[in-house]
């Protein structure tokens, strides 16, 4: 009961937030929601199923281009958004095939290669993608007379989808899928020995993780109103990795904490891009060296220290 109260207050604060934020800050928080959705996807693929993906920016990009290009064809946002997820997810399933044979560093390299190739396709195939300058003039959706065209209104749409994504990830993690993901991540041989299909679950881990990224992309395009290949490079994939690593891999809270830090941190600290990239790279090293569970264990300790406080440990 207390738990519901806590989350109710959090959501109320998030709903009230736009009234107190300037245009730019509102945009940054909106962007955080989008990146959270993608990072949740990566957390399922890498954090739970232990399948390395350094091409989540590709899935993200596929979702974004699906949205941008089909909107331009006059399709409805509400129809395209699931398609963004599905296209992302299908591509993810294809990328998952190498994972059947390779893991760890091989898979890291293979997925980097995928990201580099998709980036080149986005830049070079301008008949489809608009080339290096990408697609602009992307519109935002509406439901009946309720329009999400303003930044203010679109914020709420993103908030809703972000919450839905978090709930969906909690559901998946607690389902038999989630348990099977963890099983193949922890010990593939044991998993196969107990009838758990590494074929099914590896492809699923990629597909589901990429689905979230695709949906994130579908929401991202209308947020910026224009997209270009630069937003989907391997370096962006690295940022997603940084998010879940410093937040905490294999924990529901991980990608949320990570996205908040990585997207909002530079704004709060008013750092130049290169400066915060140094800081995050360093954090990647330090987390691996000293705190492999990620910053989420700070939360865990707080929860232990304040037993009366509420919170969820999935």
């Amino acid at each position: 009961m207390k738990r519901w109260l806590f989350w109710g207050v959090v959501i109320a604060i998030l709903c009230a937030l736009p009234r107190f934020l300037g245009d730019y800050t509102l945009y940054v928080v909106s962007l955080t929601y989008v990146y959270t959705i993608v990072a949740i996807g990566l957390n399922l693929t890498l954090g739970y199923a232990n399948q390395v993906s350094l091409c989540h920016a590709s899935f993200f990009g596929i979702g974004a281009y699906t949205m941008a290009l089909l909107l331009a064809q006059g399709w409805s946002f509400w129809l395209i958004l699931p398609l963004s997820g599905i296209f992302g997810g299908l591509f993810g399933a294809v990328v998952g095939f190498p994972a059947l044979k390779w893991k760890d560093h091989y898979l890291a390299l293979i997925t980097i290669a995928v990201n580099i190739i998709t980036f080149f396709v986005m830049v070079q195939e301008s008949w489809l993608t608009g080339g290096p300058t990408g697609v602009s003039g992307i519109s935002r959706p509406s439901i009946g007379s309720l329009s999400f065209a303003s930044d203010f209104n679109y914020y709420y749409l993103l908030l809703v989808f972000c919450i839905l994504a978090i709930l969906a990830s909690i559901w998946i993690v607690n389902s038999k899928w989630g348990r099977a993901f963890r099983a193949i991540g922890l010990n593939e041989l044991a998993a196969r020995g107990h009838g758990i299909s590494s074929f099914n679950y590896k492809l699923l881990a990629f597909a589901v993780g990429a689905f979230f990224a695709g949906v994130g992309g579908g929401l991202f395009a209308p947020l910026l109103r224009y997209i270009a290949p630069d937003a989907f490079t391997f370096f962006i994939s690295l940022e997603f990795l940084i998010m879940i690593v410093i937040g905490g891999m294999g924990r529901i809270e991980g990608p949320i904490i990570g996205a908040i830090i990585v997207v909002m941190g530079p704004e709060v600290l008013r750092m130049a891009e290169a400066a915060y990239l140094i800081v995050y790279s360093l954090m990647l090293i330090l987390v691996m060296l000293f705190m492999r569970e990620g910053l989420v264990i700070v939360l865990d300790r707080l929860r232990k220290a304040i037993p009366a406080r509420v919170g969820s440990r999935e």
Partner: protein
Amino acid sequence: MPLLETQKMTKDFYKLRAVNQLDFHVEKGEIVAVIGPNGSGKSTFFNCITHIYSATAGRVFYQGRDVTGLPADKIIRQGIGRTFQLIQLFLEMTVFENMLLSVQEHRGSLLSRLFTKDDSEDIERAHEILEFLHISHLKDELAGNLSYGQQKLLDFGMVLMPRPELVLLDEPTSGVEMEMRERLMDHIRELNKQGQTFVVIEHNMDVVMNLCERIVVLDYGEKIAEGRPEEIQTNQRVIDAYFGVEE
């Protein structure tokens, strides 16, 4: 019709022939021992049956159906349970999660596994088996925190979870102390009475002689003898190959 049958099973690692033209069968309700010196190909044979390794040649039949080349997980889901020589558990999950994982893929469709919770029947059975193995007090402990003997029991318990018709055990008693070993043997015997079939790779001759009705002896990947315990004990080839080099 034998429950499990292999025909001319062969496995090469490079130039090393680990299993050579092995014809093998188990009838329903038997307990068969596979013995042989270290490196004679026993574990590799199990791994070929369950397609953890792809056999170089040969066929596997289970309940008369050709299951050669099916993915490992599919073969397991046909009703074959197995352990590995090195215990394979999900060390960072609880004992109870391990138990439920071992059965969750045996029923329902892939999609249903996203939406349905664990069967109450499975949960009950997991409790029963843990009770039966005297490790139910550990059910919320991480598998990695168990002692070796407890892990071995958990491994055994997980294999039993989906009620496999055929159970392949790779050295179930190695590294297990006397008392625990007796208990394991009793379990196997009791389950066998209830109709389960066992193939056991075993080094301990007492266990083999006590437990099994039929023994198959491997040496350099080949079957050099097969028969009842007392026949094997007096077989000259076996004595040369196996008892001669016993540690």
